[in-house]
């Protein structure tokens, strides 16, 4: 495993942990968007450009937009219980 893959994978794990712990839902959506983009780069590294294209279009594009619309319709802050 090269240094580039190592950086990508550790960044991926970091983002996956961060998206759970961020309280601001809009920030969590943006972190998830970055996660999808890194995932797309990982898929191209694994020689699966088809999956990478789908991940970039659906994971980063459509899913993020749907999350943002849902946040706009509800509340932005996660409530403390």
């Amino acid at each position, binding site marked *: 495993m090269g240094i580039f893959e190592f950086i990508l994978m550790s960044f991926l794990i970091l983002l996956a942990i961060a998206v759970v712990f961020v309280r601001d839902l809009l920030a969590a959506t943006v972190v998830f968007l970055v996660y999808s983009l890194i995932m797309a780069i990982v898929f191209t590294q694994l020689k699966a*450009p*088809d999956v*990478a*294209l*789908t991940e970039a*279009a*659906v994971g980063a*594009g*459509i899913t993020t*937009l*749907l999350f943002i*619309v*849902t946040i706009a*319709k509800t509340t932005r802050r996660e409530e403390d219980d």
Partner: protein
Amino acid sequence: MMTTVVIQTIARVVVPFLQLFGLYIIVHGPVSPGGGFQGGVIVGASMILLALSYDLSSAETKVSHKVRIAMDSTGALLFAGMGLLCLLVGGVFLEYGIIPLPMAPAEVRGLMILLVGVAIGIHIMALAASLFLHLAEEHDT
């Protein structure tokens, strides 16, 4: 939703290129990465960009609910129809090579894969736009 002249101008410039790129990905599906689904999502995303940069009603006039339903059904019916066509000429579902056209079986297969990709593209581009527009439209609660 709040928009400015800058956003609207950029969207107006970007949308045709985005749609051309989506169509390129659909049509080059058999020979390069991508295909009906990926290209359809990109064309659908261009419609979402229109709805975001202008407002929902202007996007609704460009691709109205009826047009989207028609595209959605057309894509699904074309896909099912091409599968059933293979059944009619005596093969199994989506067995392209058996269709009697004056071409080599490999060429028939290539052509049918392209046509099925276009059908999936039409279906998905209406679906992706519908997902966003139906979620974002104002409901009277």
